[in-house]
């Protein structure tokens, strides 16, 4: 019995939160990796672009709520995602046309494009803050929990409860759908294959008649989908605050690089690696050992490897270690 309690404890506090957080990171990391693989620069505006898409979702959610449109038990924000995606893609295409295109045609070095993306970062951040303000917004509605701790305890008669939030399930389900669609697109369709070819060898792709403008446009469109969905899922699960989204850029970069930048599957797994590492290392295992060990051996301390203050530092340290020993990432990067 104690053994099952211990497992439930880990499930509740580590596995379920890490899976949903990892999914959110994974979507962002694939976004970074796509831009890096095809447009060949590190996009420092990642977090703020996600905030931009989420902002529309928040605004539309308020609008729908005022009109009484909803999805019942599901959050209204899901209904707004398609509209937000359209706005996000429009914004990205405009930015590309006004800003990035010039440097792409000039074949500027990646560093210069990264600098330019810092300009975009400032502008996007300003737009988001001017439109919606810097405050913390919660826009989750509908049923909050699928499984409450008390219900679980009654059902199973265990000491430990298992809580599953609606947003966590939605996050995982949506991520799985989006990512499988993306991989299907990249591997099976003609356009997807042309994107991979372009990412692998630009000149060869041009020679075989692939239209670069089309590839770039489709990349931004996919990026818009990923950024918006990733941002909205994160916002539903936690809350929407522009500054937090900016900061999320860092673990997202870590996930993309750990997985091997330029490799979408690596980025997908990288998201989970980062999320699990962050939560595994900062979780206090005291209760876990209390269940497993006999009473005489019970630990006095919290049995925590690192305090939760260092949550971000964990993912960055992993990144630094990966960069040192395997700069290409866990899976070899650079090709879609």
């Amino acid at each position, binding site marked *: 019995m104690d053994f099952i309690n211990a497992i439930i404890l880990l499930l509740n506090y580590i596995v379920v939160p890490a899976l949903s957080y990892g999914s959110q990171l994974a979507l962002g990391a694939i976004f970074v990796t796509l831009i890096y693989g095809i447009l060949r620069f590190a996009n420092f505006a990642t977090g703020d672009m996600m905030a931009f898409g989420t902002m529309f979702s928040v605004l539309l959610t308020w609008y729908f709520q005022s009109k009484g449109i909803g999805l019942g038990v599901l959050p209204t924000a899901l209904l707004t995602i398609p509209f937000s995606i359209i706005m996000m893609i429009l914004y990205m295409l405009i930015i590309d046309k006004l800003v990035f295109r010039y440097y792409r045609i000039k074949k500027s070095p990646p560093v210069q494009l990264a600098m330019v993306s810092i300009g975009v970062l400032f502008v996007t*951040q300003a737009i988001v803050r001017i439109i919606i303000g810097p405050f913390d917004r919660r826009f989750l509605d509908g049923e909050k929990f699928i499984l409450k701790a008390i219900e679980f305890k009654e059902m199973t008669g265990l000491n430990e409860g298992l809580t599953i939030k609606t947003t966590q399930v939605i996050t995982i389900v949506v991520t799985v759908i989006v990512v499988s669609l993306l991989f299907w697109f990249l591997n099976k369709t003609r356009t997807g294959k042309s994107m991979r070819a372009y990412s692998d060898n630009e000149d060869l792709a041009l020679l075989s008649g692939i239209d670069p403008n089309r590839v770039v446009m489709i990349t931004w469109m996919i990026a818009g989908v990923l950024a918006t969905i990733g941002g909205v899922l994160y916002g539903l699960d936690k809350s929407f605050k522009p500054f937090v989204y900016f900061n999320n850029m*860092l673990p997202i970069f870590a996930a993309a690089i750990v997985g091997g930048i330029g490799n979408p599957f690596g980025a997908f797994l990288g998201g989970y690696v980062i999320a699990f590492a962050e939560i595994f290392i900062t979780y206090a295992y005291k209760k876990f050992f209390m269940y497993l060990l006999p009473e005489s051996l019970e630990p006095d301390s919290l049995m925590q490897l690192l305090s939760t203050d260092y949550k971000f530092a964990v993912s960055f340290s992993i990144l*630094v270690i990966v960069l040192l020993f395997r700069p290409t990432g866990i899976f070899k990067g650079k090709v879609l």
Partner: protein
Amino acid sequence: MRQYANVFTAYTIMIILIILVGIFQSWSVALTILNFCLVSAVMTMGANIQWGYAGLINFGIMGYTALGGLAAVLISVAPVQEAWAVGGLDMIICVGIIIGMVFSIRYVLKKIQKSKKRNYIIAAIIIFGLILLRVIAGPATEHIEAVDPARTGFLGGLGMPILFSWIVGAFFAAGLAYIVGKVALGLRADYLAIATLLISEIVIAIIKHEDWLSRGVKNVIGLNRPVPYEVDLQSSPWFIDLVEKFHSGKLELINSLTERQDLLNQLVIEASSVYVKLCLAGLFLVVVIILLIITQKALYSPWGRMMRAIRDNDEAANAMGKNVVKEHLLIFILGSAVVGIAGAMMVTHDGLFTPGSYRPMRYTFLIWVMVIVGGSGNNFGAILGGFVVWFLWVEAAPIALFLINFFTSHLPETNALKIHLINSAPYFRFLTMGIGLLLIMRYRPRGILPEKIIKQ
């Protein structure tokens, strides 16, 4: 002389702008802007040494700034005797353990061939060391943080004048830069950018949460100053006389003695804050000028030419027998040290150390905007960038507010859009920065004052 005409015009315009702020807003505001411009100038010089001279991208400026600030705390605050008594020895032992770990790992790396066995030994040393550290440091930090937590709760510093910290801050930053450089400099440019950004976040996380070191997010306030305090000035006769002389025309216009006294008091209070800021500005200016002379000399020395050669074509430089790796590390350390000085200067100016305020937007990306806008590779350009961008950063909000009011003057006060825009005026500074950076990069990619190569 003509080549300096641009520089001269640009700086004159900048100084006129600051004087205008002094006339229209207040001298205190203008001097604060000037001081921060000078601090920013030091930071941009540091970033410029790395990016402009050597083409090394360092997005970790925030980390070095914070280390400079930490140095200011550790140098100037008086030591907390009780804290040293309860946990000082343990902390020294911990430092010893860390040093021991580093040296034993180095020994293992040198003596044992690359193999699985070596990896296991290193892992064992690290794990054993970490456990030992936890056992010793855990209780010690608890004891230290329990010493009068509302006021101290940390080990304190050395109790020396804060000016020393400007040098110590440089050494702290240089030390971090040595480690980062050893680890990350081999990476490609954009990887290096991300790696340095994340390492600086780790540094901030440590400073924020290690309360025994510098009180973490509880902040350290009331650091001592290299310049007189306003309160002391207001009660010292020579200063009051000086103010009286300075404003004698204005004071003589008033007949009533009490009113004249009131006005004088008010003037003295105003003048004292201006005087303090002027003193700081003088100190900062000395630092900027010294650094400017050194960096100019370095830029046009054989060493500077070698750095540019490495920047423009590192393979060719390598073939000419220049040690690219070593020079990159050196310049990374030098640039970071300059940033460390700026960090200490900033904390000196504020008189307080707030780890929570170190954010990458303000301390990394803004500095990069300064370097790019000013002109990378040109020291005068970098300093000008610091001035222009900081000036805009501060003044963007008032200007935006003015423009909003101007364009919405036909709307009633209760108009929702108008209220919303007025409330979001502070965020127009991000917009200004972003658009400014994008325009400069597009139409003047080498900055306002581009790098010029003097043919010798």
